[in-house]
């Protein structure tokens, strides 16, 4: 490995600047690619072809063209809207999603900043977008937007907890809050060991993240057939795409990265076989990331959406007690499982 990669975690200002530039380019490109994947995977699941024209080969430039179109569109702000709040809400939704990318380790050393409290940071930052949605819905002066915003807020409270608790389980088992440390602490078969605990934690995390990102089947805050994309009813042009489309895909990729990091062994090879370590960790990470993104995209068009009260019931009566119980089980495992079972 070249030396400068070895020392990638150095904190000289210019290295930090390079890192930030990389993140700032990777995230939009990733979001565009994610959007394209969304188009294509959903289309093929639905027995369609999806975009086929823009760019020539299977419409690869479709999301790019969409983005340009949205940027060029008129930015309409309703007369009765609370204008500053209305204007800045998309930023408040999008920036925290960018911040999520800072602590996702793409390789052992390819991380912007390996914080000691990386997990805390992630969970704290990931819940900020809901505030932006609330702002957007409230300031739009639209009834549908208001309903959507309130649903979003209610959903945030219900689903932040399961995510935190399932991540806490992972941190307990890893014995660290550092994201790289969590990856390093995992061993093959990542998700399935300790038996049951990892898998259940993963399922809870998955359900919680789907709800947090407002993806179907938990997309009540933006349900387009009920309340017409909820908080974003009044948005148009660039604010719409940053607040909604871009944020959605960027969020989805970020959470896929988190799930890979917490449960699927991050950048490490899928089987502990020596020759496989030749393949750089970033390849493994991307491979696992694709699987996770596909999971999100697969669930998305298949299921109908729940009702808001049913979702709350599911969270408070199912996921939260489940994840609490899981913490107990994980604690018991840490305390009482014999040493040879650990690896």
């Amino acid at each position: 490995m070249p030396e400068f990669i070895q020392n990638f975690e150095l904190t000289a200002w210019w290295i930090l600047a390079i890192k930030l530039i990389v993140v700032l380019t990777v995230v939009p490109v990733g979001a565009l690619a994610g959007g394209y994947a969304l188009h294509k995977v959903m289309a093929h699941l639905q027995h369609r072809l999806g975009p086929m024209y823009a760019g020539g080969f299977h419409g690869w430039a479709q999301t790019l063209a969409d983005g340009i179109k949205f940027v060029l569109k008129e930015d309409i702000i309703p007369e009765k809207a609370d204008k500053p709040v209305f204007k800045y809400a998309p930023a408040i939704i999008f920036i925290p999603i960018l911040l999520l990318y800072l602590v996702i380790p793409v390789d052992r050393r390819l991380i912007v900043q390996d914080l000691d409290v990386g997990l805390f940071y992630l969970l704290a930052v990931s819940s900020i977008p809901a505030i932006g949605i609330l702002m957007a819905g409230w300031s739009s002066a639209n009834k549908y937007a208001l309903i959507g915003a309130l649903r979003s807020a209610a959903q945030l409270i219900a689903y932040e907890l399961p995510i935190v608790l399932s991540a806490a389980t992972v941190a307990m088992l890893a014995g660290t809050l550092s994201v790289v440390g969590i990856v390093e602490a995992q061993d093959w078969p990542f998700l399935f060991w300790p038996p049951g605990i990892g898998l259940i934690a993963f399922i809870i995390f998955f359900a919680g993240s789907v709800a947090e990102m407002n993806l179907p089947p938990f997309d009540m805050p933006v349900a387009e057939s009920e309340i017409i994309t909820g908080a974003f009813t009044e948005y148009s042009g660039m604010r719409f795409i940053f607040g909604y489309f871009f944020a959605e895909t960027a969020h989805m990729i970020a959470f896929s990265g988190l799930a890979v990091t917490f449960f699927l062994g991050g950048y490490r090879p899928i089987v502990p076989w020596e020759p496989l370590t030749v393949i750089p960790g970033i390849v493994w990470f991307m491979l696992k990331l694709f699987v996770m993104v596909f999971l999100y995209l697969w669930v998305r068009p298949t299921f109908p959406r729940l009702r808001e009260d049913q979702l709350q019931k599911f969270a408070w009566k199912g996921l939260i007690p489940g994840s609490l119980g899981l913490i107990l089980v994980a604690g018991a495992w840490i305390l009482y499982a014999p040493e040879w079972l650990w690896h």
Partner: protein
Amino acid sequence: MALDEREVQREMDAAAHKLRKEKKRTYGIGLLKGLAVTLRHLFKHNTVIEYPDVKQDLPSRTRGVIALKEENCTVCMLCARECPDWCIYIDSHKETLPPKRAGGRPRKRNVLDRFAIDYALCMYCGICVEVCPYDALFWSREFEYAEYDIRELTHEKEKLSDWMATVLPPPALEEGALLPGQPEPPAPAAPSGDGAAAVPAGDTGAAEMKPASAARPATQTASAAEVRPEQAADAPKAPSAVQEPAGSEHEQAPAPAATSATQVEEGQPPTKAETEAPAGSAAATEPEAQTRAVRESGDSPSATARGEATGEIETPAPAAVPTPTEDPDEVYETVLKDQLEAGSSPQVAEARAKVARVKAERGVRRAPTPIETEKKVPSAPVTGHFTEPVPGGAPAAEEPKPEQGPVEPTDEEKGPDG
């Protein structure tokens, strides 16, 4: 089925039971099943037609756009009058022609100045095509004529005439259809239809099976007589047609055998024939010739039924039993390729290839017909694709009569026509 109270009750109970079963909790199995369904579709062959690149083969009856055969229009205004939303605009002036003979009276004639259809208003009901007594309007399956301005959707007669090139010959009818000239079969299941459509067979004119599109007027006549039999009966002059005298050797065959024979001859796989067997067997109770008859149906039925346009062409039906000599699909491919190379538009090439295939299916040996020898598609008026109407006259001399497999169509044509 009689409405039996107990039966209804039983049905209701069964249904309610089934409902209860389906409402039972299944704990996530249903979710997984749903995921399996979508995943399976991910790997299935996609059936999407990529429209601007690939075009769907629409049926020939498709009501896409109305095409005008300008030469046939006599400015009778029937279409404009019958249109439910009055979207047809016709202007004309009277022209005085010199007398035919010296000392005769000068003749007056309507000349069409403007024929426009406002497709922004048109509801595509097809009444105008149906009422036109002179076969001047046809349905084309063309549909790409969108405009940026609603006013430009009013298409004038030049554009309408251009569409004539895309009009397809009417399709053959399903087995069991009543053909003109046939006595009505005894209705097996239901009360008979009051002897409708018994067109006197002796009335046959315009009889020979010409290549489908070349013989358009004749087949139009046929379809008219067959679809509107009562009108044909009303108008004794209406020429009807004789069906293709095919399959007479099957006439005495037992029904299932005859059916399958028919199916196989149509080039369908035997399994297909089996699936169709019920339909075929019903049809097989009819005179076999009827089930075999390949007959064109028109999309402007009432047209010649009134006997105004077409005169009688006294032609005895040719008696030869044609046998298929070429593979229809192969013929289709060849002709399509030839036509495209010759510079025909894709639609026209396709239409001609289809004509060739139909001929091949009927066992009609293909002769170089005017359509196929003609290289370019003229805009309007279109010649060759449809022959001139034959008001009281013989068909155009170049029309071939390919049942007898002529190589020189002109001579053969003249022979039986007398």
